[in-house]
């Protein structure tokens, strides 16, 4: 079953941001959307979430038109926003942060449910702590738990590894892999794919258009990298046989 379908999707603000995107994502797939700064990654996330209307083409999420029928699938998507946009000075506890999405829709959330999702990300012992007092990596794990609290079919994560320590990165990747093995679809938007490269099923290399899509080793070729980034990036094959792009921080 296809969970996300993009058909000839284009979008512009003042100038064209995305052009003629066509791809499909299957149920249970682990997908990484990768591209340089300004490639249109966050716009693509907003289009899939139904927050923006495609200028051309259409997007289907779980069989519904993403923009017109957003209310039918919004509870089935767990979203992890970029952490930089969050106001962590607010004196919310970890428990409050996890409960907020459901409480703000008038739904009750039991402590057991909160503990369950927090233990999945290894943060159950911090349940009573203030969110703002946690490290960047711990905050990101709590936000992942928040995305999971509604038991979503699709998980959409926007730059989940920004400012995150290695143990937290590993924990996040472990949780995401586990979720895909249970049939959940995971779409992760990153500028640096290396923390998750071994686990993803497919990479979509983006720079306003889909430059390439497929297994990491098929996507990371000299030609595709130059098309996406405008310059050559060293490609290194690791012991397990995966091709890793060794770029500096392209995210500005």
């Amino acid at each position, binding site marked *: 079953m296809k969970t996300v379908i993009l058909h000839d999707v284009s979008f512009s603000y003042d100038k064209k941001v995305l052009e003629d995107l066509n791809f499909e994502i299957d149920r249970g797939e682990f997908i990484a959307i990768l591209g340089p700064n300004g490639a249109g990654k966050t716009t693509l996330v907003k289009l899939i*979430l139904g*927050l923006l209307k495609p200028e051309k083409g259409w997007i289907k999420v779980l069989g519904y038109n993403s923009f017109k029928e*957003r*209310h039918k699938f*919004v*509870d089935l*998507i767990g*979203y992890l*926003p*970029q952490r930089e*946009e*969050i*106001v962590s*000075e*607010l*004196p*919310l*506890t970890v428990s*409050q*942060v996890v409960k*907020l*999405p459901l*409480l*703000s*829709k008038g739904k009750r959330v039991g402590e057991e449910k909160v503990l369950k999702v927090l233990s999945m990300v290894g943060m159950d012992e911090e349940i009573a702590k*203030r969110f703002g007092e946690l490290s960047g990596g711990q905050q990101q794990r709590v*936000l992942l738990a*928040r995305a999971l609290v509604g038991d979503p079919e699709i998980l*959409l994560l926007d730059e989940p590894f920004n400012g995150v320590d290695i143990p937290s990165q590993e924990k996040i990747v472990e949780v995401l892999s586990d979720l895909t093995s249970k049939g959940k679809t995971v779409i992760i938007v990153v500028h640096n794919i290396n923390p998750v490269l071994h686990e993803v099923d497919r990479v979509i290399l983006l720079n306003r258009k889909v430059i390439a899509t497929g297994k990491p080793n098929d996507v990371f070729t000299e030609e595709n990298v130059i098309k996406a980034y405008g310059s050559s990036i060293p490609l290194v094959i690791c012991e397990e046989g995966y091709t890793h792009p060794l770029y500096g921080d392209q995210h500005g």
Partner: protein
Amino acid sequence: MDELLIKAAIVSILIAINTAIAGTLTVFRRASFLVAGSSHSALAGVAVALFLKSIGIDVHYFAFALLAAVFAAFLSAKASKHGDINTGIAVAFALSMAVAVVFISMTRNYTSNAWQFLFGDLLLLTDEDFALISISTSVVLITTSFFYHKFLFISFDPDGAEAFGINVHLYDFLLISIISISVVSALKAVGAILVFSIFIAPSATAMEIGKNTRAIFGISFIIALLSMYFGLAISYQYSLPAGALAALIASIVYFITAARKIS
């Protein structure tokens, strides 16, 4: 005990409730300047109402003040859609002050009324003012309790809230409107200029020492109430303006708390 003093004591409780709710939500929303913007916009509404009264058209100040404050809230919410909310507030602030000055200068025999709206007086409230503050405080309390989690969510994580299906712009406008109603309800009691310190200083102090949201609402209420009670007591003894004294106490408490935290 003096009837005026009892009334002032009860109004202080109502204003402290407004401070705890609207002041704290404003600090959470990182838009402290909003209170100043709202109160000065309300002042423009009051100035228009006073002018109309001076030329024989009998209108009530509250409706005009509320309309002006909510209009400024609307402009601010629209501005926040495209970036920093404080830019919208600043423009609304300047516009409303210009309107206020023009209309007050065109108004004859009502300068003393304008003075009360500028600096307020807890001891000069009529029964009608008392009723208006009570009703608007109830509206603020009920609306906030109904939408509390949405207000918290859009303040904490607007992108996340939008993705989870919350209409961020609608609830942002509602939140700003609630803050405006609160500010207008306190206008005659503490004045357009001093309402800022009565609303923001207690909540900002509470943010420094409160461990969680509940504690912050509680501490903010207590500081606002005690500031006004001490202000009233000193005012009663020495014939000084109670609102100004309350603002002074609330501001000093904030600076002491902030200084202690730094050291």
